[in-house]
């Protein structure tokens, strides 16, 4: 099946938006990430930056080196390729997470809210590969798709002023990780010792848009063991490849 042609929208004289749809849908999102890879592989002249979102790709360009029309033609030739020429595997990045207790002060609330035990919540939360649809609005924040509505929970009425980096939270049907310490109103169910955003690394992140993320429950004593191992460089992430 041939997917519908994207829309090309001007975002000023130095950026354009390639819009594949207006919905949160893994198939639409896949086209966004495939186009990003194709533009990079083709080294399209004049492109300064690429920002993938759920359903569109913002292409920043230098108007001294290219134009809207030139880029639209170049990108159209890349999107016209038949399906299946994009990537054929996806990465699943495993995130060790200590649930409950001091690391997840709201796990009990999320369980009670859904008439589940804490162990049920952990089992459901760790039972899915979450698609990283996009990153933003702030450094290293992942927009994850695919959380079960059986563990959904409302935001806190009063947001916390400081949430530790690595905190794993739930807000309505979304789940996510706070990459750096920040204020926030999500229900905190656990915490990972893995640093999701570190500007001294290139790339500064451990998961990227288009990857999948899998939470793995670890005992709270392991949180500190893994923290130490990360600091002395003797620990590495478990990453699996999945045919897609």
């Amino acid at each position, binding site marked *: 099946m041939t997917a519908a042609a994207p829309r090309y*929208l*001007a*975002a*000023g*004289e*130095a*950026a354009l*938006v390639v*819009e594949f749809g*207006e*919905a*949160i849908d893994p198939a639409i999102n896949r086209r966004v990430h495939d186009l*990003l890879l194709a533009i990079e592989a083709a080294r399209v002249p004049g492109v*300064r*930056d*690429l*920002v*993938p*979102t*759920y*359903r*569109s*790709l*913002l292409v*920043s360009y230098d*108007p*001294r080196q290219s*134009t*809207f029309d030139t880029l639209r033609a170049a990108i159209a030739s890349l999107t016209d390729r038949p399906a299946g020429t994009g990537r054929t595997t996806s990465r699943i990045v495993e995130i060790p997470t200590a649930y409950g207790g001091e690391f997840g002060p709201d796990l009990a609330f999320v369980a009670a809210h859904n008439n589940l035990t804490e162990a049920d919540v952990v089992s459901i939360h760790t039972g899915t590969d979450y698609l990283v649809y*996009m*990153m*933003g*609005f*702030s*450094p*290293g*924040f992942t*927009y994850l798709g695919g959380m079960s509505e059986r563990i959904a929970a409302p935001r806190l009425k009063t947001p916390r002023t400081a949430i530790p980096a690595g905190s794993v939270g739930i807000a309505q049907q979304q789940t996510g990780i706070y*990459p*750096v310490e920040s204020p926030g109103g999500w229900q905190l169910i656990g915490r990972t010792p893995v640093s999701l*955003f570190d*500007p*001294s690394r*290139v*790339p*500064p*992140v451990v998961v*990227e*848009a288009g990857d999948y993320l899998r939470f793995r429950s670890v005992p709270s004593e392991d949180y500190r063991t893994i923290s130490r191992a990360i600091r002395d460089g003797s620990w590495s992430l478990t990453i699996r490849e999945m045919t897609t």
Partner: protein
Amino acid sequence: MRAFEVIDGGMLTTVQDLGRFGFQRYGVPTSGALDQFSLRAANRLVGNAEGAACLEMTLVGPRLRFLVPATVSLTGADLGARLDGRPVPLWESIVARPGEVLSFVGPKDGVRAYLAVAGGLDVPEVLGSRSTYTRSRLGGLDGRALRTGDVLSVARDRPVVLGGALRLADRERPVYGHAHRLRVVLGPQDDRFTAEGIGTFFGSSYEVSPQSDRMGCRLTGPAIQHARGADIVSDGTAFGAVQVAGDGVPIVLLADRGTAGGYTKIATVIGPDIPRLAQAAPGDTVTFGAVTLEEAYEAVRQEDRVLASISPPRPATADASRLRKVAAVVAAVAAVPKAG
């Protein structure tokens, strides 16, 4: 090499260059100078590459003591610069001597001034840029605004003092005032507004809100009507995007904007007019006018021509001899018989 020390950081003084590219996909904003014309001009005036790191100073300027002789330039807003009490000319290179203190008596025109030092400010590059993003404490000097006791260096081993002074011609120097006409290209979500809403946007005068910052310029004024709601599935944000949230009031997204957002964007301010907005003070008025992409590209070329006019004056004799050589080459090419 140490260049100057900070006696007082002023209201918000940060190290900026032309921004951090390649990492927006990870949620890292570009940051960089809000008024890129002034930063590029400041650098050209001291012989730097256009994108070298400078200070961006906001309304209330800092007090800086020079530790070495240095060629420097001030561009952008007139914040009332003084060097050891003497008024400092803007838009031209000057020489600061060790011990001299650069201070500012108060804003006269505009909001953001830029200080370039020959050699460029030397702070570590973070993700390919020296720009400061204070919200995530990224880049610049420890990711924060300058404060008392800081010492800034330039990327040189010995003092850089240029031979001749450079200046931007008087007629090319911007005067900001308090009424700003901004050219925009419609989109990317102009189809999410009613015809009446687009009429409101172009027909109204908006006032700059005091809540404006490096993330965005908030405006107050007539509400712009949406056709089918203000919310969209998150989409990338361009520098200068005019976002209209549910309250119908526009915000122009600037250098520290989030990389993606879930509100409709009616239009995008063209790059060459963003400096106007960077220099707009709370209470100033802003109006919008539509241009085509072609007109926007021409405005970019025009801005580049103005910047290219900042160049060292060449000795007349050298110019004459170069002209003679060019004339000889032209004559030789013309003399070649055309094939076919």
